């Protein structure tokens, strides 16, 4: 029997078909690991160039088998790095949003500030890392500062753009209802700018981990970046891969959390996945 041709408007394909990607992704992972394993064994690649996946796995298991306060385990150092990244991300984003709104709210401030913003933005922020070690020492403070500086810019730029994107009619509407400036900021401007702010947060969530790692490279007593340097120097490449894996996973989880929050708060904005723009 023939089905009616056009009567399939509201597509309700089974979940397994709609989210076929959830099935394909793990398959791709397994295939990649298999190829990796095959290559290392078949071509007898030295273990200090590319360790086989099993070695990396063993290193991960060993690293995670000790408690979170044991300096010989991964949990401790991952905790340090992600705490630095998280705190820097939080501070940098917050200051970026607040300053972005302040800059955008006044033509004068904006005109004065833009050249500085552009000049500072074109400076590679990681180049500040050595200086920050001198200022803040080898502790976590310098890492938080550099992470803040790195995450600050995407949020500054995006919240300025977000502020300017607000439909002036929305502001007129609020004013016609005797809204106070604070009400306009809180109930009109901030929510209207959220899609832009989230585009900034998406970028910043990736940059935050980069900032913490670079900070640790330059000088640190703990953290995954410091571990990487140590393992590298002693040619222990399997744990290097293990740490890289932890970093990738951490970045992925952080970014997923941001996106989940975005879907909740900006459900009304039909925006395709943001392209990096900072």
């Amino acid at each position: 029997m023939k089905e009616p041709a056009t009567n399939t408007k509201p597509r309700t394909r089974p979940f397994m078909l709609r989210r076929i990607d959830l099935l394909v992704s793990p398959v791709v992972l397994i295939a990649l690991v298999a190829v990796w394993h095959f290559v290392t064994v078949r071509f007898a690649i030295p273990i200090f160039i590319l360790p086989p996946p099993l070695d990396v796995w063993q290193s991960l298991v060993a690293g995670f088998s000790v408690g979170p306060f044991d300096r010989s385990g991964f949990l401790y150092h991952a905790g340090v790095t992600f705490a630095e990244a998280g705190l820097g991300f939080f501070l940098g984003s917050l200051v970026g949003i607040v300053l972005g709104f302040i800059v955008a709210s006044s033509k004068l401030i904006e005109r004065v500030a833009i050249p500085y913003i552009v000049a500072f933005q074109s400076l590679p922020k990681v180049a500040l890392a050595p200086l920050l070690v001198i200022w803040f020492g080898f502790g976590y403070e310098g890492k938080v500062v550099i992470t803040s500086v790195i995450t600050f810019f995407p949020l500054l730029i995006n919240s300025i753009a977000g502020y300017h994107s607000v439909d002036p009619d929305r502001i007129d509407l609020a004013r016609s209802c005797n809204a106070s400036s604070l009400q306009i900021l809180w109930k009109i401007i901030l929510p209207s700018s959220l899609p832009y702010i989230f585009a900034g947060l998406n970028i910043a969530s990736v940059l935050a981990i980069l900032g913490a790692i670079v900070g640790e490279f330059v000088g640190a007593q703990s953290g995954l970046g410091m571990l990487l340097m140590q393992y590298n120097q002693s040619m222990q490449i399997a744990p290097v891969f293990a740490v890289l894996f932890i970093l990738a996973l951490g970045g992925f989880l952080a970014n997923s959390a941001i996106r989940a929050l975005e879907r909740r708060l900006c459900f009304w904005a039909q925006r395709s996945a943001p392209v990096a723009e900072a």
Partner: protein
Amino acid sequence: MYPDVAEVAQSVDSTSSIIEARDVTKRYAASSGEVVALDGVSFDVRDGEFISLVGPSGCGKSTLLKILAGLLPYSGGTIKRSGAPLKGPGSDVGMVFQTPVLLPWRTIIENVLLPTEFRRLNSDSYLQRARDLLALVGLAGFENRYPHELSGGMQQRASIVRALVQDPPILLMDEPFGALDAMTREQMNVELLRIWNQNRKTVVFVTHSIAESVFLADRVFVMTARPGQIAEVIDIDLPRPRELSMINTEHFGRYATRIRALLHSKGDLS
């Protein structure tokens, strides 16, 4: 910002005028010098009257409406609204914009109650009125939908409800149906008159459409550009309630022809 009102012309009969404008001028500072958007505009709007404001693009209709709403400072002249000198926005005015301007993160009912929220009134006490008004415009059952789930016409009706929720005596509408297709637009006109008939607000309705202006109004203010002035006020002596069939009558056609002639004689073709 708002000029002193000490010398409002007393000679004019202001017994039942809800809006009195005298010699209102508005100059914008533009990059190319100064733009005179309004040049000595004077008029009265009586309580409960439906006024249409027609004119070519750029003649200052939106400017005038924003000034009346208290959203825009004016450069000269005096304005009284609801018997008091105009001091800014107030709850005696509801504003409807060309686009619905609904906040997409709020449901329809939350959007409609926004004015009461901004004025820190108890929203709950307006809830029933909001529901009734939504029902009146055919949006019963859509209270908890989000704006993007509604058609353009439905959104604009919700925005009219938002303007009416505090029962303001004055309704200012800036080309509210300009973005709608011709058929929806006619329906909205009929519906607007039905709402107006039920609670007799004073309405100032800006439009580009000559037919719309005649169909809706008690009086049509015809504006001309450069500088923005009211060229003529035309009394529309058509019976109410108005019906769409009237648009094809000769009487209606004469008003439309008259307005068209006025607009064209000033060299403004829009």
